[in-house]
């Protein structure tokens, strides 16, 4: 059946709205947009931007929460230079980040590639592998404390089967931080895996076919097709992982309490202790601003690098 369109009588054709009405319509749309944005914007101002500004002000004060605050200028920032625990916490946090982020990405990517091979029951595997990420850190930390028990713990028992006498992981100068890193990688790889899997499934198959016709090996396909096409997902995972690892706190607090010595004291843990256990709000705010500056600089550098390394087009 052919469709016929009846001609519209000239009197019923809609005339272009007057300019004032168009503006009113546009104002209405803007208002609607702001209304939709408002909850998120208000939340951002109150819970993110506000505290950052407040931290800036508090960092210039000597304030114990109860006595009236005293203006001390940049003294809190000057204190950072002579505070060995702060530097130790900074080095520990950098160590944690430098090791845990690449490890997490390698494990996440490897598992995502495996799940992308068209395995049977892939949904079940995906859910199973995502479980550590979905479990609260406190519970995971307690389980890993048990795994790391030197005598009879599962880790050392397994090492014993291959003739290795495992250390006292959580009280060892050398092994406490690696132990935390392994636990953190196990806890967080699920997130990266899901992002990589989504990225892998969005890569057009014809690119692989073209590579195959050109005689590419599996490794060449991975290097020249998969990795470039996965670069937006990789960029996202790297940025979020680095920010997350700079803020590592709960697992270190529960598993080692920052010890032995200050071997696993992280920056956020030290900031928390300074502000809420030692009531030195100004100094804690100064430390948090330094951490904020580190994260901003590193993230900005990543965004700059992404222009060269990340490919958003197909």
């Amino acid at each position, binding site marked *: 059946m052919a469709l016929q369109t009846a001609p519209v009588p000239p009197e019923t054709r809609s005339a272009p709205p007057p300019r004032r009405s168009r503006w009113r319509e546009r104002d209405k749309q803007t208002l609607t947009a702001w209304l939709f944005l408002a909850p998120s914007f208000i939340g951002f101002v109150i819970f993110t931007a506000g505290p950052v500004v407040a931290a800036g002000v508090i960092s210039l004060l000597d304030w114990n929460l109860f006595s009236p605050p005293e203006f001390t200028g940049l003294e809190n920032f000057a204190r950072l230079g002579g505070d060995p625990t702060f530097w130790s916490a900074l080095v520990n946090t950098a160590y944690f980040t430098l090791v845990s982020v690449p490890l997490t990405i390698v494990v996440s990517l490897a598992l995502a590639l495996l799940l992308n091979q068209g395995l049977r029951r892939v949904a079940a595997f995906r859910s199973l592998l995502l479980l550590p990420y979905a479990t609260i850190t406190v519970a995971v930390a307690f389980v890993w404390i048990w795994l790391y028990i030197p005598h009879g713990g599962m880790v050392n028992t397994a090492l014993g089967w291959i003739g290795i006498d495992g250390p006292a992981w959580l*009280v060892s100068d050398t092994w406490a931080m690696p132990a935390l890193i392994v636990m953190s990688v196990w806890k967080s790889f699920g997130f990266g895996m899901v992002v990589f899997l989504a990225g892998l499934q969005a890569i057009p198959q014809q690119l692989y076919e073209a590579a195959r016709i050109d005689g590419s090996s599996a490794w060449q396909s991975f290097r020249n097709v998969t990795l470039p096409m996965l670069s937006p997902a990789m960029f996202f995972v790297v940025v979020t992982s680095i920010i997350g690892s700079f803020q590592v706190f709960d697992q270190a607090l529960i598993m080692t309490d920052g010890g032995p010595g200050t071997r696993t004291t992280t920056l956020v843990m030290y900031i928390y202790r300074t502000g809420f256990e030692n009531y030195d709000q100004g100094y804690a705010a100064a430390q948090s601003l330094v951490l904020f500056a580190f994260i901003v600089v590193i993230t900005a550098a990543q965004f700059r690098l992404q222009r060269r390394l990340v490919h958003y087009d197909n």
Partner: protein
Amino acid sequence: MSPSLSRRDLLRWAGVGGAAALLAGCASRPAGAATWSMWSSSPAEGKVWADFSTFVEQQMGVPSIPTLTSSNGYVTKLDLQLVSGTASLVTALNGWMLPTYAARGAHRPLDDLIANDPEFDIEDFYPDIRKISSFDGRTYAIGFDVAPTVLYCNKTIFDKHGIPMPSATEPMSWAQFRELAIEFSRPADQYGFSCAPAIDDLVSWLYCGGGNVMNEGATASALGSPESLAALEFVADLFVRDQATPPISNLVTVNALANFLEGNVAMMQNGPWQVVNARKAEFEWDIVPFPAGPAGSTPRVSGSGFAIPAGTSERDLPLAWTLLKALTSTAALDIYAKAGRNNPARFSAGSAFLPPPANLGIVQRILAGEVAGGHHYEVTTNWNQVRQLLGQDLPRSFLGQVSVREAVDGITPRLDALMAQHQDKVRQATERSR
């Protein structure tokens, strides 16, 4: 009226509910009610405080509203309430935290209230709890419990080895104690002694050895003194050289009581407040005085009290003082004693520690100075930082990673800096109170 709820109605009611919740959250304490804060981490503790609350209502004729918080979250909640002006009229304070709060001006001195109240007899409180409740020469809290550290002994293990229990009145020497600890550690998976390598436990050895964390004026570290070093080395040797203690697998979860309750540890250092938990043991046990070092048997004596926040208005002050007196009265502390949780702070109150086991009565005798002795827990206005510092580096010598001397040498400059900071805080607090 429409039977169904429209989306607009739902939003309106949600808004009203949210506003009401916000207002309720911001509300200050109820007027005329006796509000008080206390930590409580078990149903048994909760029952004691419920009984306290009933007692307060009977005594004062006003509603009693206790705010009970788990021990771990108590300080955080108290801080928030103090800062926001919503703290209870009376708040419980652990003795070692008192100088921290007093120096920050969070609680008010009570000397004027005590002096103007002829009914209140401060002399009825044990001297140690009065020292613990004071800062900079002023009384900031009235104690409700106080107790010395004692030595728990697994009588079953002593009997198995044919070794008589130590005397309940004459403390054994450190040498005798070490000999016993080594002897009991000979069988596999059995240990002579258990304590946490943390300053709260180690300080008893320091006091008995004639040492301390800081010097008398709290102006510098005293951990490097020969007495302190000898005391710390004595305990570290029990861990590292004699292997007389259960192996440390995790510094966060070291728990002397849990080790003792396993039944394979012959002796444990702890406070008598653990008697209530030790009663769950499936073996015979008893307590004896802490081993006597060069300075005698003078282990840590610790306690807690009730204090009045500095933000309490003049109008509420009489009610707060009456409430504080009710909570620390002999009758109230008898409730506490009957629950068997810890030793009440008053001479006139009953004992929480009645036999069996046979020696429990020594707790009050130690406090009264009739048996052995004790040393009130000396702390500074930044004790949390001191604990953190010592908790970071000192345990490494108990793991054999560094010697005690090396650990102390590393700690000393930072401990000296904390003592200087403490002096500043004391000076600021003194100036503020003028």
